[in-house]
């Protein structure tokens, strides 16, 4: 059985260059973290570092994992897993990730409950410590 990446249609990828590219990308991520004060907000930083991570992942998959040189079976095999992998976060998003209703949890409501504590009447349920 022939190895698809070993069939003589290409020389091996420049592994050392890929390694240095990955190192540079890692350095860029670290630099982005160090220079946070110059980045307008955390959303921009998130986009930058995740874009860098995606570029690194592409380098590893295409060259180190040889996907660039594999035949079309790679799409058949990986596309369903990719689609299913996206399904879980999307399924959780409406209820957990994006709140349509106000969140009422102890972590956030203690201060509010203290502030709203009536001077007389039933204060038991509003007092901290519950």
């Amino acid at each position, binding site marked *: 059985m022939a190895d698809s990446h070993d069939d003589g249609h290409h020389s091996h990828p420049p592994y050392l260059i890929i390694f240095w590219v990955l190192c540079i990308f890692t350095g860029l991520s670290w630099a982005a973290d160090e220079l946070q004060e110059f980045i307008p907000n955390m959303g921009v930083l998130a986009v930058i570092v*995740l874009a860098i991570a995606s570029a*690194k992942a592409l380098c590893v998959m295409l060259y180190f994992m040889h996907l660039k040189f594999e035949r079309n079976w790679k799409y058949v095999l*990986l596309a369903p897993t990719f689609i299913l992998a996206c399904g879980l976060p999307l399924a959780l998003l409406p209820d957990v990730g994006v709140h349509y209703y106000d969140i009422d949890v102890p972590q956030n409501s203690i201060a509010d409950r*203290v502030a709203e504590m009536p001077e007389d009447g039933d204060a038991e349920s509003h007092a901290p410590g519950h």
Partner: protein
Amino acid sequence: MGLAIPNSKLCMWLFLGTEIMFFTAFIGTYLVLRLGSPDWPSDVADTHINVRLGGLNTFVLIFSSYMVVVAHEAMTLKDFGKAKKSLWITFVCGIVFMGVKGVEYYGKISHDIVPGHIAETEDQALRKLVNEFRESRDEMGRALFVPGEDGEVPDLSKISVALRGELSGATDESRKADLQAFVKLEDRLQNSFLIVETDPEGHQILSSDQARIEAARVAFSKLEKAATAAKELHAAAIAKAADENREAPADPGIVDPVPPTTIGLSAAVRRELLPLFEASHESVDREAGHHLNLHITGLLDEMRSEENARIAAFFSVHDPHPIKYGNVFASTYFIMTGFHAIHVIVGLILFAIVLKQGPALDEKWTDFVENSGLYWHFVDLVWIFLFPLIYIIKF
């Protein structure tokens, strides 16, 4: 017919397909929880996330990935010596990665950044403080207690009675000092107002012993009466001066009494006390929190001081402060990095199998090295995403 790749490689890719879904479940859940939480721990003092250690591990894994492709290339060229050398380097990189991970885990666990242990509200922080205080006391009591001939260790209340009884007749100076330290720790805990009680509705509340509450009420009442009396005297003096066409006397500078610490009081007492204060609830709370912080800091410093070295040896109480969403942070952190670490260990086992062949390593192992390499690259891929998501993005 069939795919133009070895069956073992097809199997590895199918397995990696399931692995993609496996890790996306964790990473996706983490993203959703993080986006959905109104707050998230981002202060390094709370999370003990070390970007430099994370960056170092990223570099270590990338370098090991490079070494794996070099090893595979050497295998295809039948340069088995070079392949072995590269795999050894990969193996060592994996060990280094686990070592750094161990350092990070040790830091988190020693600061009790463990799912379920993190206080998320003021109340939980104080309750944790009391529990840890008690655990330290119990541990010290157990360590000091000398079982009788039957070897049985009684419950902790009896240990306390036994140690206190022993203290009265102790002659050995060192033993006496140990027992005195224990009694001091126990008394300090009992005299502290940080006691968890159960109110009539079954809720756990932070409270104080009734004598201290009563003393606080009496003291406050006296202060209030004194302030009222002083104000009345001042008002009367102003009125008298106005009648006699004299200049009004200067304000004697008597102010309303400072609200006493109320956070340590039960809800019922707090409700009774609050109307006494002509201050907003917010300022009362801030004042109470201030007093409480001073009290706790002083208490912890005292127990950890050199003077109390015998207590300090058993005293493992963390400075109490709430970390909102700290538990879900710790859960997601440990589940993602933990499963990743398990994968690293499996990779190390795969490489160890190859390295164990020693001089017998030949071309029959080429597919095995390639498949182990694919697996290792996948482990690297996961870390490539975990590094920015866990270590860099903070909001």
